[in-house]
């Protein structure tokens, strides 16, 4: 059973009150967050007030909504009314939104218990959580290692059991990569499945909010509740996505699981071995493994960095110190104020991507970079469509390696960009993909694999993921931190 159902049973069964339960988590945050650095804001009052409401509801004998009373967290780029939302950037320090992101509205209406906002790479740009102005979140499996990024705080909190679930955002792997590094489950939904309204934009055509949890069932429950059409997001999908939780345990006999040969190239041996071992497990479960070629994959990384940076350069133009957030202290005139505010407010990685993006959109370079990248995006989309003619899901590594040691990622940005190779194609194609743990390396650090699906076919990838979880529970390992149920 997943944690969400288990907790709700505990609450409704009278084993523990929601307030007591929430306090346990708040206590654990106080002690464990010192080392994990997962939370950047703790919302104790908000959490206890909600928990109180849940207890009253239970006392009245009312039935709980699917996420009611469950302690959770939000990445710090999801807008929460009255609660600081900084994207872990100095430039948004002190910024408290005056409106709620749609996903937070949904969760709040269900009385999900918000424990706080979690750490991330600044504006979701990074793969180690270390570009955060608060310093990185650490890996609960071994705090000498990073949690991954950009949703490192959510992954660290969930793997460290100081949150039951969390919502992250994934632009090029930012949910799946930290889930993989921390040995838990992370779903990047189909583009348009979850409303982006209120998610502080990094690259609008790639960003997608999704759950990070410890079990596949929990991911399914959270996804089913947040994948709702939202008229405030024009790219939100206006059709019913059938609940994924009902089909988790469906037999996968005869399912065709594809492995693209290119996906195994350049992947570290221990990772490759784990993926192949997982493929063997699937064979035992009656699935068919189909190897195929996906040559378009080689375009994915440059396409991603051109498009994401181009959009970011535009999305981040609004941080000028005029309306909200950080503003420089000494300046002469408006222009100088804006220049100084941005120079002081943004970190190096964000500046690097703004510069890159500005360059590729500039007159004279647009055709050579941006336009070409857009065309190649079409090629990549088509390549996946073709692949899905023959397979039901694609199995791939999430990251070519395991978690980096602290400080390694920030030393060479280009080297770090290369580690996104397995995750970015999925954002480019707008597909759903779930990362689940599939083993450990010799240092005991988790290895993750992705199960990639057709658009809006979250049900199948979660079904396939769930089946693996049932036969390989040893890969879903607890850490020493946090609240144990």
């Amino acid at each position, binding site marked *: 059973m997943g944690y969400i159902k288990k907790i709700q049973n505990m609450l409704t069964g009278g084993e523990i009150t929601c307030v007591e339960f929430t306090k346990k988590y708040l206590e654990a945050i106080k002690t464990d967050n010192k080392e994990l650095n997962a939370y950047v804001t703790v919302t104790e009052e908000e959490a206890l007030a909600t928990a109180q409401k849940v207890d009253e509801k239970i006392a009245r004998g009312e039935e709980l909504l699917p996420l009611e009373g469950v302690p959770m967290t939000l990445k710090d780029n999801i807008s929460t009314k009255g609660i600081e939302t900084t994207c872990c950037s100095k430039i948004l320090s002190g910024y408290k939104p005056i409106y709620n992101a749609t996903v937070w509205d949904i969760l709040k209406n269900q009385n999900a218990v918000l424990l706080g906002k979690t750490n991330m790479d600044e504006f979701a740009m990074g793969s180690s959580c270390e570009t955060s102005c608060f310093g990185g979140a650490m890996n609960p499996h071994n705090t000498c290692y990073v949690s991954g990024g950009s949703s490192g705080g959510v992954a660290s909190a969930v793997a460290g059991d100081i949150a039951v679930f969390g919502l992250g955002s994934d632009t090029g792997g930012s949910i799946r990569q930290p889930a993989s590094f921390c040995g838990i489950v992370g779903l990047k939904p189909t583009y348009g499945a979850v409303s982006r309204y209120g998610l502080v934009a990094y690259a609008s055509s790639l960003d997608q909010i999704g759950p990070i949890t410890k079990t596949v069932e929990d991911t399914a429950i959270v996804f089913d509740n947040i994948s709702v059409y939202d008229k405030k997001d024009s790219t939100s999908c206006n059709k019913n996505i059938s609940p994924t939780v009902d089909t988790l345990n469906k037999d996968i006999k005869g399912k065709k699981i594809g492995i693209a040969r290119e996906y195994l190239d350049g992947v570290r041996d221990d990772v490759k071995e784990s993926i192949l071992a997982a493929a063997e497990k699937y064979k035992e479960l009656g699935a068919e493994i189909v190897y195929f070629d996906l040559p378009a994959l080689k375009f994915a990384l440059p396409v991603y960095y051109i498009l994401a940076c181009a959009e970011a350069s535009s999305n981040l133009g609004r941080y000028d110190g005029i309306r909200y957030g950080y503003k420089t202290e000494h300046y002469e005139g408006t222009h100088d104020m804006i220049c100084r505010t941005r120079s002081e407010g943004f970190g190096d990685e964000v500046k690097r991507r703004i510069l890159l993006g500005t360059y590729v959109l500039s007159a004279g370079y*647009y055709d050579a970079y941006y336009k070409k990248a857009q065309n190649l995006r079409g090629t990549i989309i088509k390549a996946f469509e073709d692949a899905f003619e023959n397979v039901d899901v694609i199995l791939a590594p999430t990251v070519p390696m395991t978690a980096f040691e602290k400080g390694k990622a920030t030393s060479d940005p280009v080297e770090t960009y290369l580690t996104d190779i397995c995750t970015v194609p999925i954002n480019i194609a707008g597909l759903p993909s779930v990362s689940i743990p599939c083993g450990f390396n010799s240092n005991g650090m988790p290895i993750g694999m992705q199960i990639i699906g057709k658009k809006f076919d979250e049900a199948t990838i979660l079904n396939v993921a769930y089946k693996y979880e049932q036969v390989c529970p040893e890969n879903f390992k607890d850490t020493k931190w946090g609240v144990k149920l």
Partner: protein
Amino acid sequence: MKYELVAGFETHIELGTNTKIFCSCSTEFGGEPNSHCCPVCIGLPGTLPVLNKKVVEYGVMAGLATNGKIANISKMDRKNYCYPDLSKAYQISQLYAPLSIGGYVQLSNGRKIRLHHIHIEEDAGKLIHNHGDTYVDYNRGGVPLIEIVSEPDIRSIDEAREYVEKLQQVMRYIGISDCRMQEGSMRCDVNISVRPVGSEKLGTRTEIKNMNSITFITKAMEYEFERQVDLIESGGQVVQETLRYDDATNTTSSMRSKEDAHDYRYFRDPDLVTISITDEEIEEIRSKLPELPQQKCERYIDELEIPPADASQLTKYRNISEYFDKAIDGLKKPKTVSNFIISQIFRTLRTEEDKEAFAVKTTPEQLNELCKLIEDGKVQNNLAKSVLDKMLESGKPCTEYITEEDMAGLDDDLVEKLCKDAIANNPKAVEQYKAGKEKAIMACMGYVMKNSKGKANAQDVLAKIKSLIS
């Protein structure tokens, strides 16, 4: 050497939708600073635009009314530039796939000013300078605009004036904007260059930005034309630059040179989906368009036999022409109505705004009733004129002022008696008439009309007097 002016216009028109282009805030002009704002139009992090359908509909109407081809697929792009009144640091506009392509505006001299395209976009806010401090008001931010971009087809200041007036007229007719230049709901940028008459090659152009009155436009163009000609004549060269016009000094001055021109880094806005409009939808909008002023004017001239100058006055504003269309219902001579409107009704409407509003107490039905009496020969013109004056003041129907007796007409004997009296009382005029001065007879006419209180039929009286004299 003689020089020719070459100009093209970029005209911004605020659309009269109730709500903004990407959120549901009010578009009302004025209001406390930042009182018509929400997270979306002040560009708070994480907010997303949702396109107002009405804006697309209005844009399509503008395209159809200017003979453009409506694109079945069009897209929104981001125009990136940094300025405090632009809350997102980009304006959502259209560059790569605008809503309407081509089209033209026809001038009275028969020339067609071709349009390059029409696109939809959002307006920016406003800076307010006060005691050395600068404030931003985002009320106008997100108000929908169309930008109408012409080809460089304008060849004179008069054409420029007429082009702007025609656009204003058409947009008001189709009801998508009030086009009030003084309130900024219509603003023009003019691209202007000169070349020797007869030359095909375009000269280097300058762009005068953001003018909000037709007078300023013509003055600025006159100034800029002279400046460019003088420059060339004295051996200099025109530099491509953006200018601002100062109406106090009636001069233009440089805002920025070509080198400093913004690189807007346009790209498709990923937050908005493709706008697709089917041919059926386009036709549906077309069918709802009112008759346009140009067509109306031609119809008045060709079918209703209204003199061209009058027809153009009647069609200047939609309210006038609609009033006229109703008032002529069932009449044989629509010109009677036209004359009443242009002479008597216009006299009561002092300003252009009054004419545009055309708030007249007399309903078109009431005017129609009066004109029918004239056509039936029951009321004579002079009487009708004085009756209409009273009607216009009170708003009452003509029957209030015309008695049965008035309508009964005069018997022939009385007419003959009045004519004889007229001849007897105007010997001098009769003398002159006999000497060949045709017009002198009008004095006798006047006498009869006056003494019959306008009831006599002018044609009959004239014939009678003539026969009596000879």
